[in-house]
């Protein structure tokens, strides 16, 4: 099979995961107007929670459902207990408190699971490859693409079609408008924050069988999420999708052409987009 086709498909899979990572960050920013630097940490504990559950013999499918929900609840609690108190402080402290949180979470992970990572087995039903003529590809990776595509559709439908979704979109324009509409803004903030964390955790669970788990995957995820959001445009669902796919494909293709530079290229791509379109490919002003 053509190696470039392989890498492009890999890139799509990677890109869908990147989309998952970025969309939560983007929506949270749209509403809370701050960037959650603990976003990567939610990805991290999502992955580790799934890893632990599978280790205990729980089925991967159950872990796929439980881990994001659990992380969502944790995030919801953290928002209520901690983050809410910094909203009226200067924005540096919104960021710094989440940096502190990310650090604490990372250290707790190392405390519990040790500093060295581990592998996560692909669930038995998805092991092996599919063979369509000359197209040979791991089943699990195809599943990731399909699953995230469906999830993306569901998320898009929630944002565009439901009252909650409209409130979220309106809220990113003005929190006053939302409260005038009679919706409790604070409850939405907590909910949205939890949703953002849950999508990051979901990305972590899905990524775990592909890249394993290690305590520093959170930072890696955070930086990439930033790149996607910068490239796609802050607050844009479509931007997160396009940005994710673009960066995922670039990274995968580059890993064949210039392996050492593959990581570098995604940041170069970001710099290029910034030069040409400072607000991202689909960002508003």
């Amino acid at each position, binding site marked *: 099979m053509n190696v470039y086709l392989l890498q492009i498909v890999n890139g799509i899979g990677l890109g869908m995961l990147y989309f998952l990572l970025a969309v939560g960050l983007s929506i949270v*920013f749209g509403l809370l*107007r*701050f*960037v959650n630097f603990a976003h990567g940490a939610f990805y991290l504990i999502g992955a580790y929670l799934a890893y632990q559950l599978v280790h205990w013999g729980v089925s991967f499918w159950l872990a796929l459902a439980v881990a994001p929900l659990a992380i969502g609840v944790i995030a919801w609690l953290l928002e209520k207990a*901690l983050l809410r*108190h*910094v909203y009226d*402080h*200067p*924005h*540096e*402290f*919104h*960021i*710094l*408190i989440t*940096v*502190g*949180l*990310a*650090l*604490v979470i*990372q*250290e*707790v992970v*190392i*405390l519990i699971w040790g500093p060295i990572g581990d592998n996560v087995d692909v669930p038995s039903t998805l092991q092996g490859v599919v063979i369509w003529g000359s197209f040979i590809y791991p089943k699990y990776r195809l599943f990731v693409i399909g699953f995230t595509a469906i999830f993306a559709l569901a998320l898009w439908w929630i944002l565009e079609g439901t009252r909650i979704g409209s409130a979220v979109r309106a809220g990113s324009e003005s929190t006053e408008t939302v409260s005038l509409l009679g919706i409790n803004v604070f409850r939405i903030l907590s909910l949205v924050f939890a949703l953002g964390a849950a999508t990051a955790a979901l990305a972590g669970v899905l990524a775990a069988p592909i890249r394993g788990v290690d305590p520093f995957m959170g*930072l890696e995820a*955070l*930086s990439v999420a*930033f*790149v996607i*959001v*910068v490239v796609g445009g*802050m607050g844009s669902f479509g931007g997160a999708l396009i940005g994710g796919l673009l960066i995922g494909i670039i990274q995968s293709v580059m890993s064949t052409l*210039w392996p*050492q*530079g593959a*990581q*570098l290229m995604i*940041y*170069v791509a*970001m*710099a290029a987009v*910034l*030069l040409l379109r*400072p607000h991202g490919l689909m960002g508003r002003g």
Partner: protein
Amino acid sequence: MKALQRHRFLLLAAFATVLLPMVLRSGSLGTEVLIYGLAALGCNLLLGYTGLLSFGQGIFFGLGSYAVGILTTRAGLPVVPSVLLAIVTGAVAATLVGAFAIRQRGAYFVMLTLAFAQMFYFLAYSLPSLTGGDNGLLNVPTPSLGLLARLGIAPQSPWQFYTITAVVFLAVFWLLERVTTSVFGRTLLAIRDNEARALAIGYDTRHFKLAAFAISGAVTALAGAFHAMMTGIAPLSDIGYHTSEMILVMTVIGGTGNLFASLLGAAFYLLMSDWLSTLWPRWLLLLGLALIAVSLFLHQGLWGLGEKLAGLARGRRNPAGEHRA
């Protein structure tokens, strides 16, 4: 007396540089405190004075480290011109990064600095012929001064380099004091307070931010250069995220209200690290908690805490030290 009052932070810094050798057994730890103190000063100029939260200080630290490494080991340049070129490299890189980053505001700006930090890291990683890749550059020379030998400090003693570092540190501290109390420094404070207002009364805030970046980059690169000379290595990690985060955390925990607080933050971080990391490897967890605490109710960091305690001791509540003009 008024001059003493005006220069009280410089005096505190001088006192600290004299105190450290008496309190610490390790010369290299003392030097490290001053080196990262410099880096924190560079970070504070951006954060405390211009209101720019930069996750990219590791870029300039690492570039300074690499510059000295490359120039001394590959190009055979003597130490002084190498360090000077390292400073220039830092200033230029900071201006470039700044030019991109300040097009955005607030959280978007912060994200960009982090993304650029990663970019430079992977750049360094992917050019091993220049940077030594994973291994870094080795055998960076540590300068020594014959003068100090004659004063009784042996050339092999880490206290030699400490003395050199201390002199440079105080010189830079003094220069930064001048900059932050100058007309330019006051304008930075205004921009931090209300950028829209600064624009409306005639200041091209972009220029000011870029200038702050350039100065910050220069100081941070100087710190990186000294770090390479002290350890003899210009490692990849100097340009990594962890360095950026460390510098930022030192700056925030020390306090962004004045320059001495930056030294305080660096000292606190490194001394805690030295002391705690043997007791409990996960001491960074406490640091994370400290960051959370600072964000919640200790915006002025350790310095602010000190002020509050001093106020309590004096029996009345003191407002935390904010810049006032």
